[in-house]
């Protein structure tokens, strides 16, 4: 009970729960789209999803300032690649929140004459850019971990052992690929926060890819990916050790 209250007290925790519910609705609607007996349920899911979406837009109203503040902090990182990637990611997220606030104002009726479709696409573009930057950072971190591992003598012994003990056809023909995959998996296992963040970003990527028309999937895939990334986000809030740093 204590942990539930502490979790929901955080603004981010609540937002993750609403996001999970929102994408669960998208996925359920897609799965039930052909069932004629469940039409009423589909209508309810639609109204719940739009409710969550509009509520989350209102709750996100202050986040531009948060992102700019985060960008200021990442500007002071020592590693140049991390500095570039994270600052760009935070700045594009700030732009995304600005577009999102404008869309909210249009939906509510505070401003008129705004091209909703254009600004919605702009918001998706900014979100896509921030995800690409985050993934670049993940790839860079994983590369660094793998390089660190290869330098480790103990690990070199382990990898030779692994190659010798499984004489498959694949390992005989492509020993380097097998070694690479083994190295990758071992690096990810030792740093679960990086693995979680990479998986979350990959899942999230399908949402703007579909919206921008770069890789058209269907609402089911979008719902599923959104649901997975939201659950991973909840896990990273519940277990602060699994949150990637910086």
């Amino acid at each position, binding site marked *: 009970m*204590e942990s539930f209250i502490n979790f929901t007290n955080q603004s981010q925790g609540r937002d993750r729960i609403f996001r999970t519910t929102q994408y669960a609705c998208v996925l359920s609607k897609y799965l039930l789209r052909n069932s004629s007996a469940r039409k009423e349920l589909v209508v309810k899911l639609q109204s719940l999803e739009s*409710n969550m979406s509009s*509520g989350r837009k*209102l709750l996100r109203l202050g986040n531009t300032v948060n992102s700019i503040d985060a960008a200021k902090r990442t500007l002071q990182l020592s590693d140049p690649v991390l500095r570039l990637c994270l600052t760009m990611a935070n700045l594009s997220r700030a732009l995304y929140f600005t577009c999102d606030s404008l869309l909210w104002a249009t939906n*509510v009726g505070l401003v008129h004459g705004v091209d909703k479709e254009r600004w919605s696409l702009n918001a998706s573009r900014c979100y896509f850019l921030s995800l690409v930057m985050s993934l670049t950072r993940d790839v860079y971190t994983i590369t660094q971990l793998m390089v660190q591992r290869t330098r480790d003598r103990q690990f070199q012994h382990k990898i030779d052992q692994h190659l010798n003990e499984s004489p498959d056809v694949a390992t005989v023909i492509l020993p380097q690929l097998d070694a690479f995959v083994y190295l990758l998996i071992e690096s990810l296992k030792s740093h679960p926060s990086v693995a979680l963040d990479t998986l979350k970003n990959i899942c999230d990527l399908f949402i703007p890819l579909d919206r921008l028309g770069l890789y058209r999937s269907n609402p089911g895939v979008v719902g599923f990916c959104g649901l997975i990334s939201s659950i991973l986000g909840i896990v990273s809030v519940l277990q602060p050790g699994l949150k990637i740093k910086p």
Partner: protein
Amino acid sequence: MDSWVRFNAQSQAKERIFRAAQYACTLLGYTLQKGGAGVEVLKMVKQLEAHMSLTRKLMRLGNSAEAVEAAKRAVHLSDSVLRLCLTVAHLNRAMYFACDNVLWAGKSGLLPQLDQDKWSQRSFRYYLFALILNLTRDAYEIRLLMEREARSSHSGSKATWTSSPSPSPLENNELSHSSLPSLPPTVLALLSQRLSRQFRVLVTVLRSNPPLLLDLLKNSCDVFIPLDRLGIYPTGQGFVGACGLVSSLLSILTIVHPWLKLKP
């Protein structure tokens, strides 16, 4: 910037800002209507208010659990009156949040056949009970502090009498001289003197206890909202909006300055 980020991160703080904005919309709608504004503007303000209200209901979805936990903590208080008032107030708040959750389900389309008026009345009744208990607690604390203040000022005056014996006969003579030409005091004069003394003690107590004053003001403003909605004391949209706005601003103040929050 740093304080805004910390403030924003607290879910409760955001909810209070939206509450302030919601009641500002209510007040704005009333003033615009009185001022004869257009239908479009009024519709937009009403829509904004409804949107904030629904989102706040969404944000409050987990609050029953929090209220029950607060009630569990209040059961262990040492003072019996405080224990009773606070525990029952928190339980009433938990019931209010439960009714509020049901209302959200109805308004968002999950339970379309819900009798929204009935559940709305129920939730406001629980809210009113919780506010009455909070006001009782405030009155009890004020009474305790006033008694303490009266006792300390009385003992203070006694000390000045005993510590300076020589000027006292002179003072006595002066008093007797000044009382000779005046009329004998009536009951009304005695009562008004007593009331003014009590009032002065009350003002001293409230001035030296800003958390108590803030809580009293907040609860007094809040109580008009359910009184109007339940039809017990209808005051109108403008007054309700103003009261809601003032109480939301006061609670934002207690979040920004945690020392201003009344404990327990």
